[in-house]
């Protein structure tokens, strides 16, 4: 014997309750749909910032320690140094800085979670008294920065 359950009365009850507030069923249905679907409209954010030369690491690969002159260095990098430190040994340190930031986010209208990973780098070129690059030191904080959007970690 199969048990047959009639669902006919349930819509009627629902209709009764909606008529009480004075709106037609269809309008209430649309409003509910918008209200529920609205917050579900999610978005993603991806922002990338480059600070100074984007391809700075690549440019420094052309520098040959012991050969490249300060004039050639300026041409290779594409700009004069940001600042110069003069040492007691008649040498100078040319200082460049550059970097990158990657921002990723999840936008849920009522809640937005965003994280920015920023890497700031420095490049130092030690120039001897003859104007030749004696040493080259470049950091790599901005290399292979991850895209991450979750802003909390285990300590939060």
């Amino acid at each position, binding site marked *: 014997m199969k048990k047959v359950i009639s669902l006919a009365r349930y819509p009627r009850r629902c209709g009764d*309750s*909606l008529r009480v*507030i004075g709106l037609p069923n269809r309008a209430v249905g649309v409003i509910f749909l918008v209200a529920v679907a609205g917050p579900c409209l999610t978005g993603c954010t991806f922002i990338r910032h480059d600070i100074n030369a984007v391809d700075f690491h690549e440019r420094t690969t052309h520098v040959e320690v012991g050969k490249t002159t300060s004039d050639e260095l300026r041409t290779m990098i594409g700009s004069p140094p940001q600042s110069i430190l003069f040492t007691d040994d008649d040498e100078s340190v040319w200082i460049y800085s550059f970097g990158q930031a990657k921002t990723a986010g999840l936008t849920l209208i*009522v809640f937005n979670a965003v994280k*920015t990973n920023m890497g*700031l780098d420095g*490049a130092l070129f030690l120039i001897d008294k003859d104007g030749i690059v004696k040493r080259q030191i*470049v950091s790599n904080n901005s290399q292979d920065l991850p895209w991450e959007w979750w*802003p909390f970690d285990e300590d939060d």
Partner: protein
Amino acid sequence: MKMISRECALGAGRCALPCLVMYLLLSETGCTVHRTVVNERVLQLDPSSLRIGETTWIGALEELGPPISANTPQQLLRAQLNERSLKYVAAEGKTMGLMIPVMVGALPFRWSDVQNTYELLLEFDENKKLTGVYETRREAIWRPWAKEPERKPPVTRTILGGDRS
């Protein structure tokens, strides 16, 4: 049984509209949580190979790389370097934003806390020889949920040489 169900339905119907208005109002309210991490790789620097009185300024630079003491791109534009110290910094910013809708427009609130969460300082004497290595750790907090008294005090410790703690 049938009467109870009908009363429930009628009650739900009466509060449906205010609930709907409230829901739509709240759906305009936005909360933003933004964390910024600057130079996380500085935390991996290992100064244990440096030697007090032996390691030179240029030797430390070759071992640890150029120091970046900036925690924003703006600070980066005025790079600072001197022959008596090198400072490596990792920073963290925690920002919470709340957008509350009012009759016209919206009322934004924002709480932000930016800290140098890690600092590694190398000091040199007049002969450019290493005299001390120190590290400081701080924490950034999520305002306004976390209050200032809840913040752990910064911890500075001497890793090599030096005469301060």
